[in-house]
């Protein structure tokens, strides 16, 4: 039942021997040690588990690891380069766009996907793009501002 699954995880070639039906979220968290990706609902409703698969934000709680085979995965841990934070990470800090911080990785990963598709999103675009990511602490207004700012910075070239 177990087989070798290969993927590129945060730029590193990764090879695991496991049941291909295992959930990507649990594989990332407990086989790869990347616990920044969070469990929130297990049904794709909250977005806390969002990672990028081939540049697309996906809900890792709903995905068998086999769907990631031979693909590129980026998690929250893979955003910074050489200790230099991604503009979205910086903007989330600058705008204090978090409280408890539990939904934050999923928010940022969804926003990365959003900005990759639409580097200059309007407020409405951001609301639409982030609508299915839930935050209970109520940091929404700040998250919107952070995404707008990061978009501008990224367009300015980084």
């Amino acid at each position: 039942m177990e087989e070798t699954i290969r993927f590129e995880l945060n730029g590193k070639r990764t090879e695991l021997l496991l049941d291909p039906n295992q959930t990507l979220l649990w594989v990332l968290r407990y086989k790869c040690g990347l616990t920044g990706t969070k469990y929130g609902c297990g049904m794709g409703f909250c977005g806390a588990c969002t990672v990028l698969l081939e540049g697309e934000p996906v809900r890792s709680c709903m995905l068998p690891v086999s769907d990631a085979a031979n693909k590129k995965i980026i998690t929250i841990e893979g955003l910074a380069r050489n200790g230099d934070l991604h503009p979205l990470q910086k903007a989330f800090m600058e705008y204090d766009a978090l409280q408890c911080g539990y939904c934050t990785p999923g928010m940022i990963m969804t926003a990365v996907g959003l900005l990759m598709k639409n580097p200059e999103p309007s407020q409405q675009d951001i609301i639409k793009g982030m609508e299915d990511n839930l935050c209970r602490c109520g940091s929404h207004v700040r998250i919107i501002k952070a995404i707008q700012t990061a978009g501008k910075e990224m367009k300015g070239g980084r």
Partner: protein
Amino acid sequence: MRKAIKNDKESLKSEEHIREIKRRDFFKLLGGGIFIFFQPFDAFDLLELQAQQGRSLPKDFNAFLQITEDGLVNCYTGKVEMGQGAITSLPQIMADELDVPYEKVKMFMGDTDLCPWDRGTNGSQTIRTFSISMRAAAAEAKAVLMQLASENLHVPVSRLEVKDGLVSDTANNRSKVSYGELTKGKKIERHLDRKAVLKDAAKFKYVGKPYLHQDARIKVTGEAEFSADIKLPGLLHARILRPPSHGAKLLTADVSEAEKIKGVRVVRDGELIAVLSDDRDKADQAIVKVKAEYSFDEIKVDDKTIFDRILNAKSTANVVRSNGDPETGRKISDTVIESEFHNSYVAHAPIEPHAATAMIEGDKITAWVSTQTPFPAQESIAREMNVPLEKVRVITPFVGAGFGGKSAHRQSVEAVKLARITGRPVVVAWTRQEEFFYDTFRPAAVVKITSGMDKSGRITLWDYHTYYAGSRGSDTIYDVQHSRTTDYSRGSVHPFGTGAWRAPGNNTNTFARESQINIMASKAGIDPLDFRLKNLKDEKMIGVLKAVADKFGYTSAKNPSGRGYGIACGTDVGTWVAHMAEVKVDKNTGHVQVIRVACAQDMGLCINPQGATIQMEGCITMGMGYALTEEIQFQGGNIRNQSFDTYEIPRFSWVPKIDTVIMDRKDQAPQGGGEPAIICMGAVIANAVFDATGARLYQLPMTPERILAAMKKA
């Protein structure tokens, strides 16, 4: 020179207190330096607590401050960080009182081995109670340091000044010594049991300035550890068999199919049936293979009939406060209005469900727990496992929000039990369904109000009855000659667990009171802000109302004006708040869009205006949920909401423009900030809906169906 240090005799007296703490090897763990132990409750609080808990509190001091041998300031407290920002604001206070750079102050929170006992993080106590004593402890520490510096530099204390942890002689600025040098090789203990002389607020360098979340960096990189993130070799993932409803009793369980799954271990310990595996997926697969039969003995009640049950329950009536005589009030009233308000059960629904990771090494139990109550969790574990307290260490990593829901810590005992049985570290991370099932919901409640006024719109009668909401926030607040508040509670009415939910009681009471005030204002033909100002004597309430009206750009109008403007005000945890909102109601669908909300808050001295503003925004955003959609649907003990598809919390598209005002009150004691701004959200939206449509909503949440029904009646 002021006598700042306790004499030896007093120190000896405190030896008894310290012994308890010593037993826990604090000093071995923490090295040398200056230690100031303090107690964050005043004597009345302690007495009340003892009465409430029916037991005496541990004798030791509740927190301590350490000036380390390298001049750092560490504060150890049982409080936790769950997004409210205590980890950011508390060091501001200490940095100011001790005259050290902000970066040199560090909080150590919620670790039962390192931190002295604390009952938990709730009721917005961290700033308004805890920080007061912490500040005094910092002042005491500074006094000790000044004494040491005086001896070291051979000059009287009065000639010394401190800047950034460096003490110097004002008469000879080449003569200086750092806090680190002063504490080197020392082990000085002091116990704070008197009032310390505090720094003049005008000299604050850090307090009152906006500080960004100190923990933001590790939260945006994914490094911040939560309770299910603990990496331990041999970790087992557990899933536990749960009953289908509250009140269901397990009759039989057939685990044979689950046992057949390779790599799954099934554990039975009395009522506890769990499946464990190295892989979470396997545990998930196994748990659904357990075939269980139950008997059902449930209370016959659902989300529609609960209000009758509440009103008919054999409850204890307790007159909380009264003034004048309601019968006289009724007689002198020209208009009497009777209303009944309903509020539903709501869930805390933090995005992090309850989680705990447990490890047992020899006879020492360590548990990382997502909890607001690490010490009560430690006590629960020790009791259930039948071991002495000191054999249990509860560590509280970052908590993915609580709002009161993580005062319950059932998962911690589950994880420890399973770790003991399996001999391996175990993580119990609840599913969203488990989180909804075991949540201690905010109780459903009823408020009945009979109020009267004279022809001029002066309130002459206020007879207020609150059923099962709790009395917090049930104050009349208006200047009424004849008023009475009666609280009905204590009977058992709920078919499942209930508990404190952000500003417990106050959301229901403020919804009822402030709706009733608008009903009266409308009947009197007076603008609802003018009506309030006419009936208020409370200067602080008048202050926040005027401030919010100014921020909102409010102009007077009789309701309903068609503008969709709402207003509400109240007090919570020592803080005064007033809100105004503008809504749009879709008259075809009954859907409410909140366009903007303004909020003014008088919270005394505001430590971190940035953090306080964020809490206000959070309260306003979260509060729209209980106002508009959030409601637990149930039949007996069967909770129908299992996830965010059927339990709708606020999303990005809901969020209004938010404007906040914090009143400048540097001369006053700091008050609570995590809860007050949520209390008005039900009433401010209900009043805005009335102003937009002429429809009065008497029940929360104001779902589209309820709004359409109310519009039909209007």
